[in-house]
């Protein structure tokens, strides 16, 4: 039963890792714009350009 001590410490550390990732993403400005990325999803990839080059 005391193995739960290790389990909890590890899981808190893993969760802490995610917290650090969140803090890092805020720091590098990923949370500054929460709307435009949703628009960018609609763009098509560069496939069209390749097609045009072939012509």
């Amino acid at each position: 039963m005391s193995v739960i001590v290790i389990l909890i410490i590890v899981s808190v550390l893993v969760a802490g890792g995610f917290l650090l990732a969140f803090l890092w993403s805020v720091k590098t400005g990923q949370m500054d714009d929460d709307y435009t990325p949703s628009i960018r999803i609609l763009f098509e990839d560069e496939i069209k350009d390749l097609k045009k080059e072939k012509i």
Partner: protein
Amino acid sequence: MLQETCYHCGLKCATAIQIKEKYFCCDGCKMVYSLLDENGLCQYYDLSAMPGVTAKGRFIADKFNYLDNAAIQEQLIQFKLGDQVHITFYLPQIHCVSCVWLLENLSKINPGIIHSQTHFEKKEIKIIYNPTLISLKELVQLLSFVGYEPVIHLGGNDWLKKKKVNKKQLYKIGIAGFCFSNIMMLSFPEYLSNDALELGSLRHFFIYINLLLSLPVLLYSASGFFISAYTGLRQKWLNIDAPIALAIAVTFSRSVYEIVSQTGAGYLDSMSGIVFFMLVGRWFQDKSYDSFAFDRDYNSFFPLGVTILKEGKEVNKPLSDLLKSEIVLIRSDEMIPADSTLLTDGALIDYSFVTGENAPIAVAVGQLVYAGGIQKGRAIQLEVVKPVGQSYITELWNSPILKTEKNVEKSFVHPWSQYFTIVLLTIAIMTGSYWSVNDPHKILPAVTAVLIVACPCSLLLTVTFTYGNVLRWLGGRKLYCKNAAVIEAIHKIDTIVFDKTGTLTNHDDTHLEYRGANLTYQEMIAVKSVTRESLHPLSKMITQFLMLQVADITSFQKIENFIGKGTKATCGNFEIVIGSVYFLKSMGILPDQEVEGSVVCLAINGIFKGVFKINHTYREGMQKMILQLNNKGYHLHLLSGDHPTEKENLLKLLGSSIPMLFEQSPEDKLHYIQALQIKGHRVMMVGDGLNDAGALQKSNVGVAVTDQTHLFTPASDAILEGSEIYLFSDLIDYAKKAKLIIILIFILSIIYNIIGMYFATSARLSPMVAAILMPISSISIVALSALLSFAFSSKIRA
């Protein structure tokens, strides 16, 4: 004949230009399409229908010459290193997916552009370009050409004033949320264990991890409350953060005591949970509308550069370097940057933004023209009389009346929190005395439990979430408030002052009125034939006006156009002289009526006939809205910078109970508001343009009305889009409902408090009870706030 719609911008084509199977309304739109087609960028048209901005058929290349000036470039560029320059522009035309797509693919049109990234909500674009391949001027020209002309003005660009505070808020919320959820999880063994499950020494492990996790919450996330409470106390003022800070401190201390003395597990989960919810509430309330600027001063109104004539050659220089007696060249649609004397002919100045006068005014050579006016005719030359900072309009900003800080009213919540604290302390003292008599052991647990449960956190949650919701609902109907304090200020308003031009009327919507001797059918045909030949915007309006009355035209024998002044023509039996009143006077024809403001005078065969007056139409629903406000008991006033020609109309529309004053200068308006405030009224000013800037600043709540949100809006507390002004009465009502919602929710949360108090005063508040009560009350407050905000919004919902 079926009218085609332009493939690029969606306007109906008067004369369609066709390529393959696509129609365009003008050369401009067609050229943009061609450019995109050549570069393989036609996905622009696939992402949204008709996404283009109307090119208006012309493109002025000289407009951006001032960008070649190195000093000006310094002001705009954010960062420069080798062959990379970073710059940010405000592009108000961004409105759809295609805009974002095109702007982020600019590098395909010009390889000098290395990278471009847009921010949709702020309507900004950040560009990295190579100055050796493309100059700043060429970059701006390209942007303008595809329809996204950047707004560049004197005020130093707003990117300097970005808010970094938001990041700190998010850090605090992240940490509080992490710690709160983990503490909650790790507390379950404590709550759910009956002695069947032997925890033994493990119990200590869980408890100490909780203690460890609660430290960042106390020391970092909750620090804002402590600092604010301390600052308030130093000014001898109990704000809402004081009891909150007290509650957090007491909860933590008692928990530490219980843990260390091994008498209990503490209330760390409730403490971290409530900190988390309150921080989220504050973040929710801080909704800001980043693409609007509420704090503009006149600097944002003026352009960055100006063209001067030096020894006959055109030179561009920064506006800040403009000196007296320099000769300035102002082209069509450009703004006059400083008070100057007119040197050349053809000036037709639109002062609507500055004085509120309806239509462009013809100015004679040698007369003074004022900064802030926009030239509507062809290019003119001016000699600067006063430096930019000392023009008539900018001096208003230096008025001492505006120096006093705007009424920083304490939130209505604060007096409530004072009562709250007093009641709380009373209950705590009573509890303490009761137990000191009956069972002294229970004093400390009971008293601290009281302080834990009765946290005014629920009041803060209620307030922040309700204001956040109300702000968003109002924003949905295009009334954008600067912050939550504005909603409270609106609540206290008892007087509303309206401007006329641009506020009650629509800048773009005009109709013509003729006053004078009746014209015969033949005469009207003749006049129409003449005005039809002129390219002047006023002539076009007259043509359209007459088109409704007569369909025929005749040819004329002779026509002489005097640009900027008028036209003289002979048409059949009639000699027609039409133009400004100065023009007619110079021909020897004197008017037989009062000629005020901007009108077009008409004389036939040497006899003055009448005037065509240009009127802006009143906005739809305006009359109803004003009457609604009147019925609700507000004192209403109308202040206009225009001539009193509209007085009769207004009296008919609005009744005679509303005081109306005309020809008000910006200072007059400012003093009027001040006088009302001295009498004890709380005034809301509704206006647009520079002529209302002083009044908007002085009033308790300043609402700037605009039709194009990217145009200059003077410093205000809220921005309202003109199309929604018919709802204004309902919008104000809704803002006032915020207080009602807060009171209702708070009454409900008191019920939770009473239940909790029962446990607390009887010293039976176990951590589990606290841990259950806290999230239930918090979540129910948030849900109720959203529900009531929605329910009360029925009148303003689309």
